[in-house]
């Protein structure tokens, strides 16, 4: 009985996870040339960047026809939305950070100039982007040349915590690619996240106590605080508010639904948020939960025969990113040519 329980609580075998990822990526690859923008006005949205990031993590080669087309579409489009700039930066850093360093610097410039005055990010407004020139590598090393970014302007007064967490994901990709971000950006962001914590130790979409805490937004706070503290050279594991956020997640833990919500619209978004929070903080357990084992088991059960998750591009991306543990832990990184760290 105990043996059976132990087996049931373990993460699925790596072979099963790899199979799930491969079938999921095969499905996603067939969708890659059918992605159409949707939404309206400032909220127009497209999946190209998210699919590119996911396929890169699913180890689909950058030279395959649809990856080439996605890379072209993404890198030749204007940078005008926070989510898309961030996902683009993360994808390009994963694919080849040396080759795409100048584009990564443009994504970073967009994000820096769009940071809200209160430290958050909003959906973003197009800014005039400089053309960066390649720097000179440090003699005798394979390190990428440093590309410093300066803030030229500010975004609106306030934004939301979802855009804010993705912006930091993008900035992190840039920093790892030797793009230098002013400390002030991380400091302002950290101030925001610290001040936005609810009395119960969780976070919500906007930050005020009028809305209840949610799993996805609390995970956003944990990952964002970890990133900010790390780049501000503080011990991100010792930060009390980060620990309080993890405690909240542990107490409300579920891999079936986004804690604090009931509509089911953000369940996969939450899972990828959970993965980032746990990977960036650097923990196998959240509360008493083996977050990866529980999430991976659930995802393998929910996968459809065609490899997708509910036949939906976004859900399939988040599921694959979770299964691949796509987020690199925060550790000493050196941006080198051709290497990830």
């Amino acid at each position: 009985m105990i043996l059976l329980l132990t087996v049931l609580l373990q993460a699925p075998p790596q072979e099963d996870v790899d199979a799930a990822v491969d079938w999921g990526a095969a499905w996603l690859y067939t969708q890659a040339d059918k992605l159409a923008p949707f939404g309206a006005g400032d909220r127009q949205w497209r999946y190209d960047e998210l699919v590119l990031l996911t396929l890169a993590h699913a180890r689909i080669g950058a030279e395959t026809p649809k990856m080439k087309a996605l890379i072209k579409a993404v890198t030749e489009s204007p940078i005008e939305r926070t989510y898309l700039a961030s996902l683009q930066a993360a994808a390009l850093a994963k694919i080849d950070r040396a080759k795409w360093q100048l584009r990564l610097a443009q994504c970073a410039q967009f994000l820096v100039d769009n940071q809200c005055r209160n430290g958050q990010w909003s959906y973003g407004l197009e800014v005039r982007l400089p053309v960066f020139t390649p720097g000179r590598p440090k003699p005798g090393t394979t390190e990428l040349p440093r590309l410093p970014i300066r803030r030229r302007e500010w975004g609106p007064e306030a934004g939301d915590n979802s855009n804010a967490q993705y912006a930091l994901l993008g900035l992190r990709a840039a920093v790892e690619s030797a793009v230098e971000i002013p400390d002030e950006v991380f400091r302002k962001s950290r101030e925001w996240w610290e001040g936005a914590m609810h009395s119960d130790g969780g976070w919500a979409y906007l930050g005020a106590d009028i809305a209840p805490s949610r799993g996805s937004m609390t995970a956003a706070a944990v990952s964002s605080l970890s990133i900010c503290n790390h780049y501000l050279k503080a011990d991100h594991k010792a930060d009390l508010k980060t620990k309080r956020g993890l405690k909240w997640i542990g107490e409300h833990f579920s891999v079936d639904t986004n804690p604090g919500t009931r509509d089911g619209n953000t369940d996969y978004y939450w899972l990828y948020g959970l993965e980032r929070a746990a990977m960036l903080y650097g923990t196998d357990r959240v509360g008493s939960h083996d977050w990866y084992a529980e999430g991976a088991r659930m995802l393998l059960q929910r996968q459809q025969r065609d490899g997708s998750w509910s036949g939906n591009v976004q859900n399939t991306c988040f599921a694959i990113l979770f299964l691949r543990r796509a987020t690199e832990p925060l550790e000493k990184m050196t941006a080198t040519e051709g290497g990830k760290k």
Partner: protein
Amino acid sequence: MTTIALALLLSQMQDPVFSGPQKGEKTPAFKVLDLQGREVDCLTEWKGAPALIVFIHELTRPSAQVLRKLDEHVGRREGLKALIVLLGDDINKNERYAPLFQSIMKFRGVLGTSVDGKEGPGAYGLNRAVQLTILIAKDNVVAGNWAITSPSDTDAPAITKAIDEMLGMKPNPLEDRVAALEKEVRELRVLVEELRRGQAPKPERKLPGAAPTDATLNGLMRRLIRPERTDAEVDGVLKEMDDYAKTDELKKQVIDGFVLLRELKYGTEYAQKKIKERCEAAGK
């Protein structure tokens, strides 16, 4: 080159567009037909109360957006009156159209049809070349005038700011924030609806065939469908599958897997061609 430079210079030298009484001038009383078809004289009735007066020369989507934002501001400012006037040569047509327009826009102010045709009240000197003439007035004296030929997102904020100045109000960042959040909520609703439509669980397709349950075969099949496979690699994986699947059960799993892959169209064009050939050879 000279021609382009000259054209640019000329475009910059174009006269500003004027329409209606200018700042400091009087706003003479005039009548409009209200939604019930009655003649009303709002300016006389309002006795010099602060007012927003909009003449719609041409109704377009951008001009409607400006109107909507101004009307929202009217709703937030106690004591501010608003009169929106539809201009047009065919008074009867405009009179019929006004209730429909009101049902869409739901103006808080008075929506009226001009009884003076397309030119509007003679004393106002309106310019037919613009889409909107917008006046703000207090004590029946114009405090601001905008003759807008191509309405845009930037028009409404400038006008609402001038209204607040006319009302003697100090800028209120909290109110601006609330307005921004209201806008964001509206846009998010659209996005959530789109996402919900996309996220709604789709009934799983009934697919022929099945992925192999044998782990080795499943792994080989996954290698087969990778999009970066060269033709030679595809042939190599197929050979490995043949070498491995010696029992009837494994051979069946291979064919079932090919039937599934043929349906899903996974793999390179060459892999799909080979998969199709294998299915046909097995009579599937």
